[in-house]
């Protein structure tokens, strides 16, 4: 079994988000980059499925050389090898296309991603890969069991869940619950340095979308404090002032 896990290089979750160049670029100064937390879940699941010599896990990142430390982190967690497609991941369509083109060259049984990246918060790449490769894609999954040919997948729906089975190749985007995130151990960190990381050049594709500027939310006004024993006033304010109940 061969599993491909697509990872994004994203700012650490505690990052204060600021922009430069007239709010057209994310300010990376002093920012720690990490493996996107949902992608870590996908990676942990892939490693779990391949445990005991049942298969191999390849991690893939679309990014420039600066993302190599993040890729090494994924190798330290337990991926067997890595691929970096050498390009700025300018949008989901571009990124998914690059991944799909690479996946055509290797015979992956399963392709996993995180449910979304915590920077652009798209939920696009997994389903786009599925469409480019004309194979099923299941978005935002909570559980995944695989018997070697058929996957049984639980996916989230509003107010519940749906159980889906897929036989043959598929793509899935993983949410919390799919696997416990694995933490790299010393042996993993040491071996990550020597695991193969192949760099592949990107292919051309017409642009369909681009981020042109960023904005930061307007600060809220000062909090209106209500005495702890006066719940009635709060209900009143929510009804008459905020008009939300």
């Amino acid at each position, binding site marked *: 079994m061969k599993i491909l896990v697509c990872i994004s290089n994203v700012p650490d979750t505690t990052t204060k988000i600021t922009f430069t160049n007239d709010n057209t670029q994310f300010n990376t100064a002093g920012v720690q980059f990490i493996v996107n937390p949902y992608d870590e879940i996908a990676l942990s699941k892939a490693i779990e499925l391949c445990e005991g010599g049942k298969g191999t896990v390849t991690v893939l990142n679309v990014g420039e050389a600066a993302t190599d430390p993040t890729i090494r982190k994924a190798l330290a967690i337990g991926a067997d090898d890595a691929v970096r497609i050498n390009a700025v991941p300018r949008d989901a369509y571009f990124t*998914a296309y690059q991944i799909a083109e690479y996946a055509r060259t290797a015979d992956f049984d399963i392709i996993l991603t995180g449910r979304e990246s915590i920077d*652009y918060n798209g939920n696009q790449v997994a389903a786009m890969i599925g*469409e480019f490769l004309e194979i*099923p894609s299941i978005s935002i999954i909570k559980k995944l069991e695989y018997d070697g040919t058929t996957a049984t997948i639980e996916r989230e729906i509003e107010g519940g869940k749906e159980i889906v089975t897929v036989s043959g190749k598929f793509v899935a985007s993983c949410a*919390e619950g799919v696997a416990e995130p694995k933490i790299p151990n010393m042996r993993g960190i040491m071996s990550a340095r020597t695991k193969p990381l192949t760099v592949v050049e990107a292919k051309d594709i017409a642009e369909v*979308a681009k981020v*042109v500027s960023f904005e*930061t939310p307007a600060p809220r006004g000062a*909090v209106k404090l*209500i005495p702890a024993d006066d719940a009635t006033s709060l209900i009143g304010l929510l009804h008459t002032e905020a008009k939300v109940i």
Partner: protein
Amino acid sequence: MIRPKEVISTGWNYIKEERNMSVLVYVEQVDGKFKKSVFEAVSYAKAIAAQTGTNLTAIAIGDVAESELQELGKYGAEKILSVNNTELKNFVNQAYAAVVTEAAQKEAADVIVLSNSFSGKGLAPRIAVKLKAGLVDGAIELPKLDGGKFLVKKNAFSGKAFAVTELTSDIKVIALNPNAFGVKENSVSPAIEAFSPAVQSTDLAAIVKEIVRATDKVSLPDAELVVSAGRGLKGPENWGMIEELAGLLGAATACSKPVSDADWRPHSEHVGQTGIAISPNLYIAIGISGAIQHLAGVSSSKVIVVINKDPEAPFFKVADYGIVGDAFEVVPKLIEALKAHQA
């Protein structure tokens, strides 16, 4: 309607062909009914059709009664394509994407709108690839048509910022966040048309085995009101008052990451940067300190109420209303006051 020739900018200027254009909205049904988020998507799509001087067509897939389809007219759908095919009884994104794409081509749609629901998130990207279209998922405002540019604002960095995305492709796909636009009535009398595209068996490789839906609970992602609690509740056995408060309000329940990590509550209730991002009209946070990762998932809520015994809790800095007090004393009083208000 036929639009006049116009010059639009897509990097360089060219004359756009004269053709019928329209906006297509995919209307997701659950057990033959449409939810509020669907009427919101229709209202939004209608506003785009008005902006661009075109018509709005809706496409529904599944067994939906004519009276329910008529409801879409209230929000401006002039034409409704109804696909009632037993093979498409359950949502399979690959097959549904093929159907919506065929409808988009039939209607010469240049903008396709969906609700950014769980299913919408699996569907929109596949439609975008089929139509070589740019996609904005999680749109929070109407597009700005600025000098030939088509700009859509969305949440980014998990609620810490907004990104304005330009869709540069001829066809555009937009998935609208629930509660971002609101439902707007715009009554027309819709023409309902049966639509029967051929379904490829290869598009039905994913098989839906079971659907489990809690009908007694408000679903969190599209809830208008949310009551959320954190570690301050001390243990899962204390959630009774949270559920009672949520029940009285008709609100969904949510929780912070430590709570779902400790299995006090299911992961599906975890809101925050690594959980789900929500933007309800009212978010009541009880016993949650307000770590930056939590705030990221809820900061686009319209009104935030914070109840915490620690006056220094960072959550108070982003709250509209706050009560400094012990949840175990404040929440029962709030329930009492709410009952009195509702009586």
